[in-house]
């Protein structure tokens, strides 16, 4: 009975996949057919509706990884090690996308692919590279409790860099005139239609990332169980 009721109800991953499948075309529709072009930057400003949600999703994923890493350090629950590793992996994928999409936008708006003078860009790059190094640490240690503990400590340290980026943005408001500021103390720095489009695009991106997280987590769990069954069956793991 338990199995029947479980299969009849869509799981969380399916619900987020449906949300992403609905929200993504809605977001694209709003971006290309509803929202007006920006008065200053023109058509290329439409990159903002994917670039910023991808960047915010990157921070969220690194944050989730750190929270689960901290929970692992407190409880030593092995499942939390995987729940810390998977969002870190996805965070690096989304971080790469942030850098590439930002670079294309920079070329279209500023005429350069990268601007070292922007504190916001540089702090993001530092956070990204720091989190990339997580994998070098993780895969240089044999699987087990030691690897999980070292990885968890590193993930927790990495999230400490995110407030630095936020401080960088606030410092940038006075010293860095090149990178646009989306939010300030007065709220969203855009009109109603742009903010609505941004929120839908953000919801779509978050739904997509949660779907990817749940699918990857499930895949890794199945892989682990298959290895265990193979060992029990007498084959090599």
């Amino acid at each position, binding site marked *: 009975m338990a199995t029947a009721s479980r299969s009849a109800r869509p799981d969380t991953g399916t619900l987020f996949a449906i949300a992403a499948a609905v929200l993504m075309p809605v977001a*694209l529709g709003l971006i290309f057919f509803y929202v007006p*072009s920006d008065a200053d930057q*023109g*058509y*290329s400003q*439409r*990159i903002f509706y*994917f*670039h910023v949600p*991808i960047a915010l999703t990157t921070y969220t994923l690194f944050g989730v990884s750190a929270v689960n890493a901290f929970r692992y350090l407190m409880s030593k629950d092995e499942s939390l090690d995987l729940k810390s590793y998977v969002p870190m992996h996805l965070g690096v*994928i989304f971080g790469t*996308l942030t850098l*590439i*999409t930002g670079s*294309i*936008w920079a*070329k*279209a708006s500023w005429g350069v692919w990268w601007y070292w003078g922007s504190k916001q860009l540089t702090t993001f790059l530092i956070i990204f590279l720091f989190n990339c190094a997580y994998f070098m640490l993780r895969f240089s240690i044999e699987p087990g409790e030691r690897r999980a503990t070292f990885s968890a400590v590193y993930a927790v340290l990495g999230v400490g860099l995110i407030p630095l980026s936020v401080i960088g943005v606030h410092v940038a408001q006075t010293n860095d005139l090149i990178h646009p500021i989306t939010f300030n103390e007065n709220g969203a720095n855009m009109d109603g239609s742009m903010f609505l489009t941004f929120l839908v695009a953000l919801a779509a991106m978050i739904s*997509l990332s949660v779907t*990817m997280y749940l*699918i*990857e987590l499930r*895949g890794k769990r*199945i*892989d682990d169980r*298959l*290895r265990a*069954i*193979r060992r029990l*069956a*007498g*084959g090599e793991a």
Partner: protein
Amino acid sequence: MIDEFAVKSVAAVYGLAWVVTLAYIGILNAKMGRMERQLDEIAALMERRAASDA
């Protein structure tokens, strides 16, 4: 008049997002294939064990 480079840039960004998503699905497909092969190996092991027990 829309700047041609701006249009190409927007297309590149949105196209890249789709390519990454499709690549991710491709990687998942490869992983599923690997797990299917592992299941086949386990099933073969179990069958051999059952045959030797009988």
